[in-house]
């Protein structure tokens, strides 16, 4: 799957490169009075987009620091992931090349992805029910990526007031930073307590727990609204990571986390984002002066 994505990315890069050169040649031939219609059909747009996203971590292989001596299934130590529960944000530069109903879109940007899981451990004395202890660990993981998505966009209706579109593409993301916050809540019956309290909060840099690369595909849909020379758009995207992002060589390397029994699973990320964007025609921004002087 990852190899397929790499090949697909390569083809898309070639198309972008070709399209860029083609655009350049056309601007050279513009003096031969290319029609206004052609001008609108083929052109670059540039702008910004930003919005919010929610992440799900999908465990591929589960790991735990604990192995049960009296529960052979050992499933009690599996992390309980809370999917799409933590809001994060993303921001990107958008460069689109439009040709009729299609567009190639390169959207380099930054994205924070946050996922959460918890573990609950219980101890009790069978001969004395009042001797019990419950510990609940809640871990919030924040990953900051520099992302480079390349999308193929299709607009079935170009002449309506609201222009709907769908898009599909691939991305490569590079991990810039990662953090982990683990909160421990304790209910200690043996010490005479019956209610839960926050006993400890650990915040650590967790960059070494993840590999730098994150690849996958993305699909989405939205609507754009032309206003003057600008286009405003609202879109929703689903991002599907296809490689294990946990650094398998460093799984046990963070003493602070390992010491408390927190060992990362092999995971892949799923992300749903909602973004708002503003785009302007590139020729309008950069070449307008040239038009006037020629």
């Amino acid at each position, binding site marked *: 799957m990852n190899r397929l994505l790499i090949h697909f990315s390569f083809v898309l890069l070639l198309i972008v490169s070709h399209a860029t050169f083609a655009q350049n040649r056309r601007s050279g031939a513009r003096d031969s009075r290319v029609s206004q219609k052609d001008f609108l059909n083929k052109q670059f747009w540039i702008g910004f987009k930003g919005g919010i996203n929610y992440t799900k971590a999908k465990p591929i292989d589960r790991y735990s620091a604990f192995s049960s001596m009296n529960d052979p299934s050992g499933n009690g130590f599996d992390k309980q992931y809370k999917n799409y529960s933590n809001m994060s944000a993303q921001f990107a530069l958008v460069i689109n090349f439009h040709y009729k109903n299609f567009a190639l879109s390169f959207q380099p940007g930054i994205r924070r992805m946050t996922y959460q899981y918890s573990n609950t451990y219980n*101890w*009790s004395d069978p001969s004395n029910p009042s001797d019990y202890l419950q510990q609940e660990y809640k871990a919030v993981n924040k990953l900051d990526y520099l992302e480079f998505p390349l999308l193929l966009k299709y607009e079935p209706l170009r002449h309506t007031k609201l222009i709907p579109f769908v898009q599909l593409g691939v991305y490569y993301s590079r991990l810039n930073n990662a953090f982990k916050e683990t909160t421990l809540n304790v209910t200690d019956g043996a010490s005479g307590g019956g209610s839960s309290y926050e006993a400890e909060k650990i915040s650590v840099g967790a960059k070494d727990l993840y590999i730098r690369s994150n690849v996958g595909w993305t699909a989405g849909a939205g609507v754009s609204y032309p206003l003057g020379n600008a286009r405003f758009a609202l879109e929703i995207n689903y991002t599907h990571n296809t490689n*294990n992002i946990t650094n398998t060589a460093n799984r*046990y390397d963070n003493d602070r986390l390992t*010491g408390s029994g927190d060992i990362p699973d092999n995971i892949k990320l799923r992300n749903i984002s909602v973004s708002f964007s503003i785009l302007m025609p590139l020729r309008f921004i950069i070449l307008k002066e040239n038009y006037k002087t020629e």
Partner: protein
Amino acid sequence: MRAPVLHSICLFRVWLLGFALMGLLAGCKEIKENNKNTDPKANFLVIYENNDFSKSFIPVDIQQTSDGGYLILAKRRITESSFYGIYLMKADNTGKFVSGEEVMTDIVNPINNLMKVGNAFYFFAMDRLSLEAKLMSANEDGTATEVSTISGVIYPLYASLDENTGQFLLQHYNRDELKTVVSRISTAGAVTAQREFNIGFGDFDVEEPIIDHLTGNGKKLPFLVGSAGSGTYYFNGFYNYTLSTVFFSFNTATPGLLQGYKDEKCISAMVNQGSNTFATAKYAYGTNTFSPHATINTASGSIASNSDLTGNIILELKPDAQVVLKQIIGQGSPVMAYNSDTKNAQITLYFYDPTSGNFRGSKHFGYSNPYEAGNFIQTSDGGLALVGTTYVAGRFPRIVLIKMSQDELNKDIH
């Protein structure tokens, strides 16, 4: 005018495309490498958890079985005696718990070491009532069986394998005659050689510290016994009013002595490096010192003091720390590995060159919950397997097994 500009733009785009492709290829390589590293046998940390509030387990030693798994000998708290009961556990080659046997409470006090002879594993324990030593065999499936009771041998303190004879060396305490005794015992449980050493009389009481050591209610004493080759053996134990290191043979020759002071200035670990050179660890009034390459006069009748052993003072270790010392292979050459406990409750490994005594690296394990060193072995894949105790939730003593791959080990040895 436009041509050079266009040319520059083209070059920039080619460079950009090349840069993007290089980034993609680097990413692809990283993902491929990451997938290769997923061998679950190479590297892991497992805490063997039991949700029974009243249970506690403290590992004694570890051995690797023929299937790549691990046998762990441990002590456990029992209600029938103040001595520890026995727990024998089997884990698979990824560290996952397979089985565990709580050996009947008539047999208590499992002592170091879990010894491998051929494909069989043995350890010594003690009869709860008669206090006689028992030779036990540990099967690969994690079950224990009694081989024999060593008649007349009471209070076993420490055992090791004599590689030269394939028999066991057992240090034990004769409470009636106030003697430290070293016996050589066959795998069938027969005593083939024995020598006694006077502890001394008067108000010098060793019984209380020995029982405190065995029950875990007091200071853990660094009892040792081993072979220095050419028929010379040594033990670290009570002799002539002190806890000293004694070099002897199983005949009547006068022993050589490396004198300590009471149980306050003692050798805490030693490995013979051939002839009269040793790697040692010692403590003196709380301060721990490692001497990775020391010369000790082992000749009959010699008397020296362990104060004369110079070395590296390791301030981060607990006062009078327990130390397990073994020679391993790291970076393709022999390395002395010291395994001990730090003041901030971590398990630590210190590596030294056995010839020059130069420091070659260190490694620490544990952070949030307290960790205590148990024992370690070099595994068949060239890595290390360490067992220790961690106090889960800060209070439940549980066995922790840490596996280091050969790559990880080599990374820590410079």
